[in-house]
């Protein structure tokens, strides 16, 4: 059974993590944008997106992520992803999202990269 979309925000020091859950489709639009607004309140230079608990992303979900990325780039902010399944890694490659968002296997690796980015 598909799990409905939900989202929460955590912070590691100055780096916010947006934890995504369930299915990312057009219904996720409002919640995702609201979470992003919360995540960037302190104007971080990096935002991490956690896909570990995401089981399905459709083309409209891809469009939402493109929207987030466009917002982030306007502010010179970087998005880092982790926890994507191999299939969605491939989807991010096909759509070339992976050219603009580095993807890491787990939170620890992503956090390491984020720290480097913050210091830089």
């Amino acid at each position, binding site marked *: 059974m598909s799990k409905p979309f939900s989202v929460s925000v955590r912070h590691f020091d100055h780096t916010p993590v947006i934890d995504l859950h369930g299915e990312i489709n057009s219904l996720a639009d409002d919640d995702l944008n609201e979470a992003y607004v919360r995540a960037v309140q302190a104007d971080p230079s990096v935002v991490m997106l956690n896909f570990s608990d995401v089981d399905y992303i*459709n*083309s409209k979900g*891809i469009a939402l992520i*493109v929207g987030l*990325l466009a917002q982030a780039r306007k502010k010179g902010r970087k998005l880092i992803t982790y926890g994507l399944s191999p299939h969605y890694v*491939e*989807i991010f490659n*096909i*759509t*070339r999202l992976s050219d603009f968002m580095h993807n890491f296997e787990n939170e620890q690796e992503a956090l390491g990269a984020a720290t480097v980015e913050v210091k830089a």
Partner: protein
Amino acid sequence: MMKDSRNWWQVLLRRGSREPQSAAVAPTLNALSVVEPMVEMIESDPLLLYFQHSPGALDIETLQLDSPALRQLRASGVKLVVPLMSQGELIGLLNLGPRLSEQDYSSDDRALLNTLATQASPAVRVAQLVQQQQVETQQRERLEQELRVARLIQQTLLPKALPSLDGWNVNAFYQPARAVGGDFYDFIDLPDGRIAFVIGDVTDKGVPAALVMATIRAILRTSAQRLITPSAVLEQANDLLHPDIPPKMFVTCLYAVLEPATGRLLFANAGHDVPYRRTDGGVLELRARGMPLGLMPGMSYEEKEITMGSGESILFYSDGLVEAHDTERQMFGFPRLQALMQQWDERTDLIAYMRDQLESFTGVGWEQEDDVTLMTLERVCDVAQEESMHANGTWRTIKTFSVPSQTGNERAVMENVAEALASFNLPQARMERLKTAVAEATMNAIEHGNQNRAELPVDVAVLASDHQLAVRITDQGGHTPIAAKEEPNLEAKLEGLQSPRGWGLFLIKNLVDELRVGGDEQHHVVELLVNLEEGQS
């Protein structure tokens, strides 16, 4: 009745005037003289009434009546009139001029004449009936001759042979009514292997209808060679026919052009009965708007296009079929025809089936009211053709199912397909790709094809050959070729130059080995193909 009676009067008087000697059966009648000109009597003439109530010889000099016929008789020199009666009906008069001796007719003369009239009346009546029968026979023969001419014109102009097309069955049947209606059909060879199918009906019957049919046939054959589209052919045919067609006559006509190689059929209709097309999804009407030919100049005709799939059939027909009546005066009708088309076993001949159905509907001894014309076009269900279409051998159906058009059902379809294909042991990555492609194609079918109308189904078929898997997703939105959309460009999207959306088709194309799109007037079909590797079939 009076018209006939009046004719009999004339006959009798003419005969009396030309054959006076025939009346010389008694010496007294030597006095008979010729009466010229012939006397005519109208139904309301009081003399007629008088004779009917006063049988026996009558001296007209003494008669006081305001009668035009009486005046004519007197002017013709008639002195004595003897009515001829048969079964209480006045059938003629014996008119006698003055006796040569210039004496009045005696009572013996009158008695003799009355006897003569009584004896002659049956013979005169028989003669009249014989003559009437001869006139009717002549009229009937003239009519038969006219019908023979009409039949000859029609039969000469109807096709002598059926077209022979690889992968297609074409058949036709024409049965004229006794009065010969104006039905016609035709096949016209066109450049590039295309062929035009024509069926039509001229109002009116007999020779006038046959002549108009010959005219429109010639016009269509000429226009077909010069013009490409069915609508243009009908427009020109209408404009050429209109000035010459007799008043109150017109022609219904359906004109369709088939490309046998592709199954593409373009058609336009000038008010003819709508053909039925039998598909896997049911029986559909081939509708296209247009006025009959010859009614008004400057008409335009809607043009439609379909692609006939393997195993599909079209029935073209004339109103003689749908307007046939049974013994209870019930009409055959369109709903019955559509239902029969659905029930037809495609292994049998469609025309023979329809003729059987018509015969059992009308009953034995049916007097056919109008011409019946049937024309069928069937795309042969050819396994070799199917195989060559799919290039990889025979296909078998693994699973078929439908879902209502509600957002979210794309995931159910995705899981259903995955379950159906579980035994093929696809590598997980390939299965995941196919699942996403299936979900995207289903989402398009729900939202774009079926417009989120839950009552419309999305039909899914999962097929397998020795070398490939196919998932066929069908919606009810009708086939439209995929528009040449802008390829999604992430940079442009990030810069706000493209919408962030528009990834669906792009993903599908990148996730399966082959994407095919097809369908017909009512269905849009997307087929996703995945190649199998060794040991996966």
